């Protein structure tokens, strides 16, 4: 959509240049990546846009003990990465169900975090996989956890003059698996509810560690800590899960909107919790 008060468009070549423009521009300036959220509405307040597509922020790189995903990496680039498919499956799964192919070709993972909508599909996997977000300012590189990054629906801690540079996710050792599940009205809709689950198992094939995060059912993505504790020591047996997934209800506070009623969100959150735990577990045991 047309940005009715847009006067300037910057397309810097380096991160430093970008930061300096962001800091020195006097009026309202906003970052644009793929633009698939940005251009969906007319942001009347915005006078300038800073396009980050030339900054080289689209990369997926192995570092020491973790992977670095540049904030301007598109979903298609994520889907083309074997490294992500094998080690961070929940991210790969979520990328595979975002919108449709034409959107996935331009939309970025950083844009999803920038928009910070509670249903953002890229977000729960970052909680579940223990990601760290790297924010660049002119003076420093800050590292924050997703829990501290999102502050409400469409709100995050990013200030003017800050760019989300990359996402770092630690590799796990031993046997582990992750999964992402989404309920929506059709194939291109935003999530009615979504979830990401990561589990590790011990030698007895019992869950020894779990991280579970639900989206679209609270003002921000929420961790289901009680449920995480409850699955530890189990083998994700369906009958047991049936009971213990009820614990998601303690942390979610869904609303009713055109996509769904709160009641439906309560019901399906349990269903996808069970499904995602079982799938993550199956992947951990190599099934």
């Amino acid at each position, binding site marked *: 959509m047309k940005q*009715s008060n847009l006067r300037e468009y910057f397309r810097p070549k380096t991160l430093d240049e970008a930061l300096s423009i962001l800091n020195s521009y006097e009026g309202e300036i906003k970052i644009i990546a793929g633009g698939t959220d940005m251009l969906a509405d007319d942001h009347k307040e915005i006078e300038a846009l800073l396009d980050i597509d030339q900054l080289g922020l689209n990369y997926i790189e192995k570092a020491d003990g973790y992977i670095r995903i540049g904030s301007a990496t598109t979903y298609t680039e994520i889907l083309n990465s074997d490294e992500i498919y094998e080690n961070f499956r929940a991210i790969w799964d979520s990328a595979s169900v975002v919108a449709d192919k034409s959107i996935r070709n331009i939309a970025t993972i950083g844009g999803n975090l920038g928009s910070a909508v509670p249903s953002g599909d890229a977000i729960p996997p970052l909680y579940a996989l223990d990601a760290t977000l790297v924010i660049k300012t002119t003076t420093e590189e800050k590292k924050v956890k997703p829990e501290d990054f999102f502050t409400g629906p469409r709100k995050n801690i990013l200030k003017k003059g800050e760019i989300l540079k990359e996402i770092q996710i630690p590799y796990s050792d031993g046997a582990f698996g992750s999964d992402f599940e989404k309920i929506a*009205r*059709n194939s*291109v809709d935003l999530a009615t509810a979504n979830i990401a689950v990561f589990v590790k198992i011990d030698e007895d094939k019992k869950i020894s560690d779990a991280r579970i995060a639900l989206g679209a059912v609270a003002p921000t993505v929420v961790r289901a800590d009680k449920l995480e504790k409850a699955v530890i020591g189990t083998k994700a047996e369906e009958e047991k899960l049936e009971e213990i997934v009820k614990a998601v209800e303690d942390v979610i506070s869904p609303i009713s909107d*055109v996509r769904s009623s709160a009641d439906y969100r309560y019901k*399906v959150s349990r269903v996808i919790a069970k499904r995602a735990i079982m799938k993550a577990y199956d992947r951990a045991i190599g099934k």
Partner: protein
Amino acid sequence: MPVNKYDVLGKRLDKIEARQKATGKLKFTGDLKFPGMLHCKILRSPHAHAIVKSIDTSEAFKVDGVVDVITYEDVPKILSMHQFLHVPEVMYYDSYLLEKHVRHVGDRVAAVAATTEEAAKEALKKIKVEYEILPAAITAEDALKPDAAQIHEEAKRGDKPVELKGNVLDTCDVTIGDVDKGFADADYVIERTYRTSKPNNGQLERTAVVCVPRDDGRLDVYATSQGIHAMRMNISHSLGIPASKLNCHRMYLGGTFGAHIHTGFIENICAFLALRTGRPVRGEKTREEMFLSCGRHPMIVKVKAGFTKDGKLLALHSDVTDDTGSYAFSGSSKMALTAGFTLSMYKCPNLRITGRSVYTNTPPLTAMRGAGNPQAHWAVENMMEEAAEDLGIDPIELRRMNLLQVGDRFFGQGPQVISTIRSSGNDQLLEKGKKLIGWDEKRNNHIPYPDKPWIRRGVGMARGFHTSGCGSEKPNAFIIDHSCATLKMNEDGTAQLMNAAADLGAGTLSAHASLVAEVIGLKYEDVIVNLGDSDSAPFDGPTHASRGLYGAGQPVVKAAEEVKQILLEWAARMFQCGPEDVEIKESKVFKHNEPENYIPVADVVRKGHFSGWGAAASTASVRPKACPPHFIAIFVEVEVNTLTGQVKVVNAVSGVDTGTVVNLNNVEGQMVGGLHMGMGYALIEDTIFDRKTGEPKNASFAGFHILTVKDMPDPDNIDLVIADTFEPTGPLGAKGIGEGVTNPVAPAVANAIYNAVGVRINDLPMTQEKLLAKIKEVEAKMDDLAMTQKNVKETVRE
């Protein structure tokens, strides 16, 4: 596929405009620009029901670029209607170009014409309006309450004032046979209430118009319209100017599904502004404005049906409550059609329809693919399935034994439009569909994945029809159905067709070109169809009721036959033989059995024209004398997730009885498109308005979703069946197809869901949420039963 005895028909041919569209060269209405063109924007009411107490436009006039600002005070005091399908006597005149009494969120309060769209928008913000807010009635039930606010104070039907008591604009009560006796004689009576939703037409191209003043004092109108003559009548009436003052141009359309069967005010407003300012005026609705100006009528359909114990239908009574929105764009015809169409589904001696059409404080609704018939199918085809189960008869068999047959009387647009069935592919469609979907194997086999018992499969079907046009044996006093065409030969051997039927994107004009080529014996590429305008094209009704090929094609065939006769006469003179001795094929004329010794058609035309033999041209005019049903049978297989209520259609068979296939690509396009649209109606599509304030909740494609290609069955899992039939009244045996292909889809999905999980949702759409709630309800009952009967739990398991 039927055996093909034709040279052109039945093949896969590119639409004549396909290349222009694919390369972006074709100009749609919204692409047109004229020097000095102004842009029109409409100030829309934020309230569902209000009176404009005062309105001040002085500040708006001061905005740079603003040329004109109008309110209800400036527009003609002429009560108007917005379509011209029906004869004027049955149409409802209930609106002005701009209103003082606004009746829905998005209703028209004022209009601005400015040199840029931005200036026009800016000016809208500067108009000061004081509203007196009135209580609103958002649903038909609320509007029918005795204390509901009166939405209209005046309306005319034809030129007679309508006495409006409350919000009912019309009622109907028609009986054929003796319904009471029919029910008394019945062994089994079923009574159900079904509700339908309010999907938006959702076509790609938004309503657009450009009105351009001409040097001769008249106005050229370029618009997204389903009928240039209907539009000309609408605009001339609402502006109080003679029809000949307007020249409406035929444009290619980017889909309409009924959204452009009426003028949605903006056309008339731009015409008015163009006449006032003397400058071209362009208007284009935003997507939100599309959501606030069209959609399918939601209905409450009560059906009561009586059967003998062997399954013979003895009596049927349908009662319809029709919500027409804030203006009766369709008059009361949707009430009459939904009710009437229920009578056309099966053979039944005793019939009754009752109904009421009701104004509500929601956007005006229109025809949308099927014009009341998807609603009729939803009720009847759900009911038939329930009846079949109760009677212990196979649902396909129950339908088969009650089918209307060749020779039977058929109500094409309710009981007012009567024709006789001359062709039927019903038996072929039922037999083939049943086989292709795997009916017998699958009806009792619900667990496709033993490790995922919560996913259940089911198969279901529904059948039905839509009329092909609105022709009746005797001229009727309900709907206009008449078409003309002029055809002339050019000196290079090409034929040029001039007619007025709109091509909504379905390939209607290409089909007309095919008819001309087939009849005369020309190559398909040798036929040109002029877009033309109402100045040059003879009269035609708009393209609706699946009549673009069946109805508008008839004079095309007639004109082509006449032109062919001229060419044969001339060729005979050239060959020095009789006209019966020559034939035309692939644009060449030759004596029978001597194809190598040919004369190009071009030479024949040149000889004729240059020798003063006359002009190879003809104008034909036809009133179709029938409206043959194109029969449809839809079979689907679904997977229902009993934990989430999600439904996936995994296999589908669309079967059509469309008579002669004119262009196979276009027929298949309609079949798959119709399936898609029907599935969306079944599962997700609905526009939602706040029950108190009337505010739209999802007036955008972000909120209102249609299904995507990924929600469709895999292409390999869609079977398309075309019955081998020939319609004697049709152009070269063809019938319609565009609407029938959607009508039975939703109940077919419903019946498959029922087969899978034993749950029925009677109100559309069958959202995952409604389904899950119903599944849980049934499960709870099952659990109770399971105390005594432990295997019941198998049926619907969490």
